[in-house]
């Protein structure tokens, strides 16, 4: 009986419309598999597959944790930036404590965060070769400068952060950006930033201080995605200064009016 069913159903194997039911019978024809002469355990594929999967995932986990302990390719690229680590930490601390509690501050923090993120990457967002800048980069700079210009005008008491620069620009956190940019340049080329470039940026900031509000609103809507946010929040809120400012500042009242002097 089953042989006849097989023959009749095998002819209809290629038909798509009834293939499910005829195929079922064929499946059952395959079903009675002979289990004689098995060399290994009959569930060996099952066991081997699951053990292999588990080993692969655990191996991946150990590779990731080993990467955290030993060096990584990014570290060599930013060896020039490594020396500024304490200054970066101090910078971020400044960002959290000294600036006013405006809603846009969070944006600026995010931007400074993003700046730092891009700095470690090697500056995908900036290029300082010559005076020719792409439109995107100049608009990015305008965003950054606008947010810094409009938000940070209070003089900073810890001049020591900028003291290694040895200049008198330490009056506003706008120079946080300048320092980041300069650090980036140092990372890329390991040479000192010329004062000319700082002046150019300063002038561009002053010129573009009348930028429409929409860009700032766009920046306000920007959010570091939950991957980075969550990971940074879970990275130990006590230790990462980055994760502190948005939480701290949202609770402070909106008392600071952003009135800037850049003179």
């Amino acid at each position: 009986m089953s042989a006849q069913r097989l023959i009749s159903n095998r002819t209809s194997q290629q038909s798509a419309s009834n293939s499910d039911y005829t195929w079922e019978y064929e499946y059952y024809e395959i079903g009675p598999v002979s289990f004689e002469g098995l060399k290994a355990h009959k569930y060996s594929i099952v066991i081997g597959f699951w053990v292999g999967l588990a080993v692969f995932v655990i191996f991946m986990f150990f590779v990731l944790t080993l990467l955290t302990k030993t060096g990584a390719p990014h570290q060599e690229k930013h060896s020039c930036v490594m020396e500024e680590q304490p200054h970066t930490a101090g910078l971020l601390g400044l960002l959290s404590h000294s600036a006013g509690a405006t809603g846009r501050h969070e944006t600026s923090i995010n931007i400074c965060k993003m700046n730092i993120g891009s700095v470690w990457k090697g500056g995908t967002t900036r290029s300082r070769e010559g005076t020719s800048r792409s439109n995107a980069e100049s608009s990015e700079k305008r965003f950054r400068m606008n947010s810094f210009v409009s938000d940070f005008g209070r003089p900073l008491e810890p001049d020591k952060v900028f003291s290694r620069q040895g200049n008198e620009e330490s009056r506003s956190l706008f120079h946080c950006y300048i320092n980041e940019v300069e650090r980036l340049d140092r990372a890329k080329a390991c040479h000192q930033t010329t004062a000319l470039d700082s002046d150019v940026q300063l002038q561009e900031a002053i010129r573009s201080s009348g930028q429409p509000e929409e860009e700032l609103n766009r920046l306000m809507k920007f959010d570091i995605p939950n991957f980075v946010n969550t990971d940074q929040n879970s990275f130990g809120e006590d230790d990462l200064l980055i994760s502190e400012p948005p939480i701290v500042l949202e609770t402070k009242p909106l008392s600071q009016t952003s009135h800037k002097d850049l003179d």
Partner: protein
Amino acid sequence: MKHIINSHENINNTARNNSDCPHVVLPEEIFFTISIVGVLENLIVLLAVFKNKNLQAPMYFFICSLAISDMLGSLYKILENILIILRNMGYLKPRGSFETTADDIIDSLFVLSLLGSIFSLSVIAADRYITIFHALRYHSIVTMRRTVVVLTVIWTFCTGTGITMVIFSHHVPTVITFTSLFPLMLVFILCLYVHMFLLARSHTRKISTLPRANMKGAITLTILLGVFIFCWAPFVLHVLLMTFCPSNPYCACYMSLFQVNGMLIMCNAVIDPFIYAFRSPELRDAFKKMIFCSRYW
């Protein structure tokens, strides 16, 4: 794929007693429960995103796409169970044209959900990658219009591929295409996330030398990739074995666990909101607001 999906329905009618690897049969209630939980969770994610204007960003649209594909997968299981119950109660003819058409439709729903899931996960990883590595150009690269276009293209492609695969389900190239999608997407997602992890790790290394932070990042990444691998790989291997070695006793023993493998895919639909959608604080807040507002109704 129909033969794979429908093969477990008539287990009672077959002479399986001469097989040493009996099919593992899970009770229908488990499938129903998991599927309904999956549908509800993903529906909540969709509602939270559509009700809140501030969540209408590209990142959340990609998460919505993942929620839709998970919901389709759970819906497929619910529909299939309903059809099986109706057939067992005798309301449906076993070989009627309606039943075969219904089977075709829900099988294409299944393949659509699989492909949608895989592509949504890849797109989410790509979006996060752009956010981290092109942070300041993110808004010019990932605009809302491009998001809508990308999602439309993906879902159109998945629908077309799903229908094609169901029509040609017993041809070997179909199976090879389907099963090769999984490792390709896995490698793609793995590369993106590992690169992002390296950046985050070097970032926190500059700020804080706490190893616990990096350990958490490694755990997060392992969970993301591990859930993807554990839930999808068994079924993909089942499809491969069904095509290439159906009469091998070892393969038959692996294929006897088909229902467990299917349940893992349902579990993936249940777990995905927790590791993608509800990791976002904004979405959690929107969700809480929805729950508290509904108490006042």
